[in-house]
């Protein structure tokens, strides 16, 4: 389970298993760095992919290894949470755009299986409206700018202004921001009070770069 007092850097993996093991070697071992099995990664390798990531990261940071399964659940909340949990994930994601029944079912099952529930607000204009409708609050809310959105429309920005609004109303929720691609964007995520910042892109273009981001991040939070 994530602590509210700490900041986390989440690194998303979307490529092949081989590349993943190479890249994990570059990362400094720290429980503040959490790994994500990206959606394409899960769709390619399934539950085995999650197990692999969890295994390889546990070797490095011990039993504090934290892995997020980016399921992006849209339906069958209960079933998908089970898949992630049985693969050893510590958290799973559900889309804010999914039917409310699915999100409720998802959060409930995450609680039952003792993993963190993350609601991904990709494409949601007013995350508040969704949070208000839920029976119970999720552990984490992800503010998201999609990859395809960004590629085709560079004007779309991560909506940092939502962070304080959500935290002001729901003080038990952690906020995660996705879509950062440079050290500067990572920093601005933390300055704007997000608890988790997700990086992925710079990782493939320059793994060394991510290593530096990770080291800088660890220095910053000390």
């Amino acid at each position, binding site marked *: 389970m994530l602590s509210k007092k700490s900041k986390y850097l989440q690194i998303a993996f979307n490529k092949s298993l081989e590349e993943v093991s190479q890249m994990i070697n570059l990362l400094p071992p720290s429980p503040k760095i959490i790994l994500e099995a990206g959606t*394409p990664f899960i769709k*390619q390798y399934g539950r085995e992919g999650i197990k692999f990531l969890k295994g390889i990261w546990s070797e490095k940071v011990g039993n504090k290894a934290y892995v997020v399964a980016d399921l992006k659940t*849209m*339906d*069958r909340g209960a079933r998908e949470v089970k898949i992630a949990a049985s693969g050893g994930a510590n958290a799973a994601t559900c889309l804010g755009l999914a039917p409310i029944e699915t999100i409720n079912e998802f959060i409930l099952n995450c609680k039952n299986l003792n993993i963190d529930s993350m609601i991904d607000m990709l494409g949601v204009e007013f995350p508040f409206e969704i949070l208000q409708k839920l029976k119970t609050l999720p552990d984490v809310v992800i503010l998201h700018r*999609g990859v*395809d*959105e960004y590629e085709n429309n560079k004007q779309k920005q991560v909506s940092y202004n939502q962070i304080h609004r959500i935290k002001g109303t729901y003080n038990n929720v952690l906020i995660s921001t996705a879509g950062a691609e440079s050290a500067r964007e990572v920093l601005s995520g933390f300055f704007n009070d997000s608890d988790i910042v997700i990086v992925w892109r710079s990782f493939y273009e320059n793994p060394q770069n991510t290593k530096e981001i990770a080291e800088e991040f660890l220095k910053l939070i000390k």
Partner: protein
Amino acid sequence: MKKKGGFKGFLFFIILITILIIIGGSNVLILILSFVVSISIVIFILKIIDGIKKLLNINLDANKQKTVGIVEKESVKINPEIYSEPTNLKNTSQNKLEKRQKYLHIALNNNLTEAKNIISEIPDSRRILIEVGTPLIKTYGIKAIEEIKNYAPNNYIIADNKCVDLAPREVEMVALAGANASTCMGIAPIETINSFIEECQKYNIDSIIDMMNVPNPLLVLKKLKAVPNIIMLHRGVDETHFSKEKQIPYYQIKQIKGSYNVFIAVAGGDTIQEIRKAVFNDADVVVVWKSFYKPTKNILKIANLFLDEIK
């Protein structure tokens, strides 16, 4: 090829001239006229021959390029150790849906052993489409699609990957695994849906837009650059289970068909009455799934009834 054409043209020309000279006799005017006419006739015939040749060549080349493209991509992008090469990689033109035909779309969601059993028992028909459900893909990964394609090499296979981001990556994955169609959510960012449809066209598979939780599908369709192949009107499993009052919006079928040339798929529940209702409302594809607690026989019965009753 050019030389041959020139030689043929020359022969034609000589023959025509001699015929015209014989007919025309000594009159010089007629001789000149016949000369001009013969030249134009020869040019016309040559152009027609060229046109036919070009058409044939383009078709041949296109086929060649497609297969070469797929093979090259595969060898570059996929790690051979992890990715076992699927046996049925290419999508044949047979595996496209036909207008005025009704299809039954069976979604497999539980596990691969059960999927294999169901496939071995359902009647062999091109009107039965097989879906690799989202839970199967998320459990087994791309292997689920390859295995099911192996069990049912002649069926149209739908990968229900429910794409919401990174469309190019997902379409490539499922197309190379042998799927004939892939799904993308209607609630995804428009940029994602556009790039999804574009990629599907590139890989020659059908694009399905799943309108789950979209109140008005027409509003989404209007914003798109290209029209997808199939629109799926969908009521989610959790929605159905927890809010029984939610209905499948049958009235939208005609609405969409009135403005767009697309197939409509409807998740029609799992009784033959509901399937009849969907077909009556003009759905082209009716989706059924086997609920975890219901016996396999149920779905086989539906498949048989569907093939018998609905033509």
